[in-house]
């Protein structure tokens, strides 16, 4: 009897199969599985809606301009190579790919290393003005990137580094949010006694950072690196302002360039260009999805 009241109230069942069900229990069960079926159907429909723009993109990338103009089908066409040739005639998309990759990798490495360095400095040394600097950094963290855009452009002009990758890469050394995150992390994971022990062994301060602190910080650095990389890869307004030469364009800027170029006349080539910019990220996500999603969850709950 106890089991049955529990079932009605919906407490999770572990031994359902072993029990003989009464008729009205069967009914509840049946209704519940029907509701479940409907919800699943709706969820799958939503997943399809989520994915359909990508599907349209992939299919259309293989179809000729005329075919796209006359209608839509899910059957791939045979114009993939032709579309590719048309696109490459005007826009070298791989070049944009290369530029984006160079910038994003360097930004990620610089951010990871220097943020760890700064976080370690803030966490394990006592010096004058430490707290003031840390608070100031937190305040500046709230300032949106666009606020200094015009000054940043003028500064780059003065320094003669417009139309180079330098203004897109070097500022990554100062990433307040990553410093903040890593400091909180290392405060809780690295015990000062470990540093003392290394000191007694005669290790230099920088060596302690490299051999003791960095390995401990690595999981947090990796988490932050994913977001740094994605952020840099997707950054549009900065390279748009800084870069002028098409051969230096990053992928997002090249996308805008594609829109204004002759390629726009051929929809198949346009779809292909977009697909080339999108598919590598989708493949990367396939392998990293669990990791990325866990990082988002962790970041949100912590704050």
């Amino acid at each position, binding site marked *: 009897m106890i089991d049955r009241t529990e079932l009605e109230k919906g407490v999770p069942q572990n031994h359902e199969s072993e029990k003989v069900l009464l008729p009205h229990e069967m009914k509840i069960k049946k209704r519940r599985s029907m509701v479940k079926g409907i919800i699943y159907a709706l969820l799958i429909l939503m997943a399809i809606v989520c994915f359909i723009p990508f599907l*349209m993109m992939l299919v259309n990338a293989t179809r000729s301009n005329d075919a796209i103009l006359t209608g839509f089908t899910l059957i791939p066409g045979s114009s993939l190579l032709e579309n590719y040739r048309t696109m490459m005639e005007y826009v070298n998309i791989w070049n944009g790919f290369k530029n984006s990759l160079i910038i994003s990798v360097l930004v990620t490495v610089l951010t990871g290393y*220097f943020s760890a360095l700064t976080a*370690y400095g803030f966490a394990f040394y006592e010096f004058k003005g430490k707290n003031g600097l840390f608070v100031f950094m937190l305040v500046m963290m709230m300032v949106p990137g666009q606020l200094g*855009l015009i000054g940043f452009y003028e500064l780059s002009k003065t320094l003669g580094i417009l139309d180079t990758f330098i203004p897109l890469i070097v500022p990554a050394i100062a990433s307040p949010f990553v410093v903040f995150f890593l400091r909180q992390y290392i405060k809780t994971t690295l015990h000062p006694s470990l540093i003392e022990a290394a000191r007694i062994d005669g290790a230099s301060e920088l060596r302690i950072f490299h051999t003791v602190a960095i390995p401990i910080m690595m999981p947090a650095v990796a988490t932050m690196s994913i977001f740094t990389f994605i952020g840099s890869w997707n950054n549009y307004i900065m390279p748009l302002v800084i870069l002028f030469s098409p051969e230096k364009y990053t992928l997002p800027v090249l996308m805008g360039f594609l829109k204004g170029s002759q390629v726009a006349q051929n929809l198949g080539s346009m779809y292909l260009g977009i697909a080339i910019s999108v598919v590598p990220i989708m493949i990367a996500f396939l392998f990293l999805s669990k990791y990325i999603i866990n990082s988002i*969850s962790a970041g949100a709950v912590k704050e």
Partner: protein
Amino acid sequence: MKNLNRYGYFFIAPFWIIFLVFNIYPVALTFYYSFTNYSGSGVAEVVGLANYQRLLTDTFFVEAFFNTWKIWGINFALQIGIALILAAIFSDMRVKMKGLAFFRSIFYLPNLITVSSVALLFGILLDWQHGSLNIVLMNLGLISQPINWLNEPATAQLSVSLILTWMWFGHSFIVVMAGVSGISKDYYEAALIDGATRMQTFFHITLPLLKPILLYIMITSLIGGLQLFDLPMLLTDGIGSPDGSLNTMVLYLYNQAFKYNNYGYAAAVAYGLFIITIIFSAIVFKSMYRNERKQARQV
């Protein structure tokens, strides 16, 4: 043992040098420009508060302000609504849905794609005559005439809102789920024993306990939304067509500076945007906090 604390300065020095040069200085320089008539070359003449006076009466900026809000608001309501419904479904103890990892990944995928690619993709998918979306909708019989999505202010804004929803509801869903999984199972078990309905459980347990997480989503989304740029820039002609309906504040800033060479005025736009961001973040924060206190009193 000798004092090692001075090493602290060495560790934080690279950060601060770069931070001062590439972050603080540009922000300060922009502030200075906002009081000048600087045009990108030549001498910057100090004009006092003229740029800020112009900002307050600039119908284009005011329009950009409301456009940004409309686009963000619709998107946020949809995004958070969908995320909460999904979270309610997946956390229900009675129904016990499977496949959370799979759906979460699929729903999140659009968020990772470069916004400029997204803008280009929807730019051609939403094309009036030849866009695949209209063709598919007409084949399905859902519409009889092709909809000119990007040529009417209302549908253009709605399109941007829906694209943003498509991009962000998966992210919000993940964050909400993280919040839900942090709520103690004891509450739900107690509710089950007391015979609470699903609705009661959701509105009296889940929602109140999710408040900090919802606040987090709202503020981050608001800050991001006020900076809306890539999508409106690349979806139409880059100056806010149709009829100025996609003119957002950052798009206006960008065009004032780099299209019309009004650097001084654009700098004032940047600071206007900054002040607006601070004010609204504070309002969101305050109102959520006040509600909490009110509830505490009622109990």
